């Protein structure tokens, strides 16, 4: 059993958010397979980056309102 499966086993055993984490693991592996550790880092940073962008826009609006 390769590393993918071993980690997947552990995810499946999680009580909380197993589906979401499974999907995240798949995405992470795909990025890793293509571009190694940097690919994985960029994928994760990109995803939280999108949330942060939204956060920045909202915060800016709130600053203007206040």
């Amino acid at each position, binding site marked *: 059993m390769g590393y993918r499966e071993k*980690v997947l086993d552990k995810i499946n055993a999680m009580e909380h958010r197993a589906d979401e984490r499974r999907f*995240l693991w798949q995405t992470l592996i795909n990025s890793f397979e*293509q571009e190694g550790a940097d690919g994985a880092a960029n994928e994760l940073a990109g995803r939280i980056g999108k*949330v942060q962008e939204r956060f920045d826009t909202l915060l800016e609006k709130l600053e203007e309102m206040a």
Partner: protein
Amino acid sequence: MFELIRLRVCGFRGFVGEQEFSFDRPVTLLCGENHRGKSSTLNAVEWCLFGDKCIGKKTGIRERVDWEIANRYLQEGEVAVTAEFKGPKGTYRITREQSVGRRRAAQKVTVLLPDGTQLQGDEAENMLYVLFRSSFQDFMTAVYQHQEAIRAILTQEPRERNDAIDRLLGLSPYREILKGIIGARLEETLTNMEGRREDFRKRCEQAIRTLDNLIREERGKAIAEGIPEEAFTEQEALNRAAGIAEAVKYLAEELGAVDFKARVPVTFGEIAEFREWVKTQTDRLWAQAPDVLKQETLAAEQQKLVIPKGRYEEAKGAETAAQAEKDKFVGQFGDEVALVEAIEQQQREIEQLDGQIRKTNAKANLVREAMRYLKEVVPDAERGRCPLCGADAPRLLAHLETEWEQKVKSQVEELEQQKRERQSKLEDFDSLRDKLGTLERNLKNARSGCEDCLRAIAQTLRREIGKEEDPLALLSRRLEQIAREQESIGEAISKKRANISDLYDKLGKLRTIDEILVHQQKRAVIERVWETKELLELEESLNEASQFVEDVRALRTALAEASLEEAEGKIHSAESALDKYFCSIVKHPAIPGLVMEVAEDSRTGLNSYSFKSKDGTDPTPILSQGDLNCFALSLFLGLSEATADTQRFAFLMLDDPTQSLGPEMKRELVSVLEDIANRRELIIATPDPEFKSLLTTHITKTKAVYNFTGWTDKGGPQVTRTMS
């Protein structure tokens, strides 16, 4: 199990044309200096089996980043590697091809099964896994020991060594993914977002507190001004504004402004502007009010009259003073005529005295000459005679001297004295006359000044002033008229001023209420911000980020646990073989056996390896580079042995295994390999002639030796084969 029987390499890395290798002996040696193609031969087997999986960052091997497949001197053609294996059902041929010159060219893989079935593409790739059940990591762990792996183990840096051991154990994917997770710095990003939200909250809180303080202060002021609590409403503010507008209109009427239109604010937002409007209009109405204008005109006229009056009085005073001084002088010393008479009198007397003095001087001269003649010219004997007639005069000189002393001299002196007195008096009279002239000029100037003031008064009163008329009285009369007019206007103005003052008082109270309400509004705006959908969405984005970080954290834990479990499993399976091989090769007197342990680095989740001697001591400080190499070899051999039952490949490949080994260790390694050769096909690449010699002489199995004697860019490796 699958034995490697043949390898055909064309255009792959150091190879230009096609080169074939037969692995028809239990042991195959690839010998030669560095950069002759030995490692490329072993890499070709790897690439044939795993393709892109053995290239790039994901392998965890630094040298595999931007690893070139095609020979860089070839302009066209194909890279092709064919590996033939003898398996349970016959010969399996695997060919992997790629176009030269295109870095990211698609690979073509073909698998030819013993029954003649040919598979290509994904089918072929899947078949490879079905046949060999091996990932690239597994292959690296237990079949092919790379020289890069040994090189990495030899580093002193613990983090790099842990990296290398993970790679040796086939755990690079865990490690690399964990590094990727760490490198993404998600917690930092989340902390930053939380921090900025908190900063925003604090700013809002500070604003609320400041506004609360301002409201409290203004309320205190308002209550002190007599504004009741119930008045702090928008409606009350508007009502008061309406009242003020009414008062302004009434003021306008009082001040005589016709057609004045009062402005009444309709909404609370207009009140600030309304307050400014009230101030501006009040000032304007006041400035243009007839009473006020009249009052200003009267005051200006009054100012104009007071000044010439004062000047006239001053001029008059000066004239009176000059006259008095002259009169006093004339009374004391006489007028011009008297003074001129006195001067002339003195002049006449001085003339008379001059005549007397001349006469007296003539006589005196005569006496003086006669005395001198008698003293100096006439001899002593003749001094008793008159110098004129010669008569006897024995006492002539004495008589002359007595006359001189008693009469002539004193007479002259007296006359001189009288003359001096007369002259002195003359000077006095001259001086008095000059003084009188000055007093007369002063009086004339004072009179002239009075006339100027009189003309100024006439001009101010805008009328002629006759000689019979008293200008001061005229002025005083006009000033009294002005005073009476001012008094009557002043009363009216006072009343209007009181109304304005009252208006300003109301305006001040309105300002206070307005300020309170504005602060309350600002406060409400800030509070409302925290109920907006944007705020909700902000919280949701923070929740999402936090959730994401928590998910990744969970993955990280799973990765770390899986990696640790696998490491522990592999170490456990290989530990006795590891110990056996290490002790066989190294024979370190201070290390009676080697135990390897693994733990999780709590900060990163990565595996952290440590060694212990069987006696419990830490051997790391005394492990040499050669010892570390032996450890790497022992681990590889130990894992190969541990996985022997499940291993599909019947061969082991070692690339330059004797880095940093001394002669003794090389001999021991050869002994170990002799033992392994009984169970596995060995393919060993080495540039080390000593090791080659030991292998040739001490491995009892038959060997094929490929000598890599040279390399050219046009021809690639020059390889010859010998047997033993």
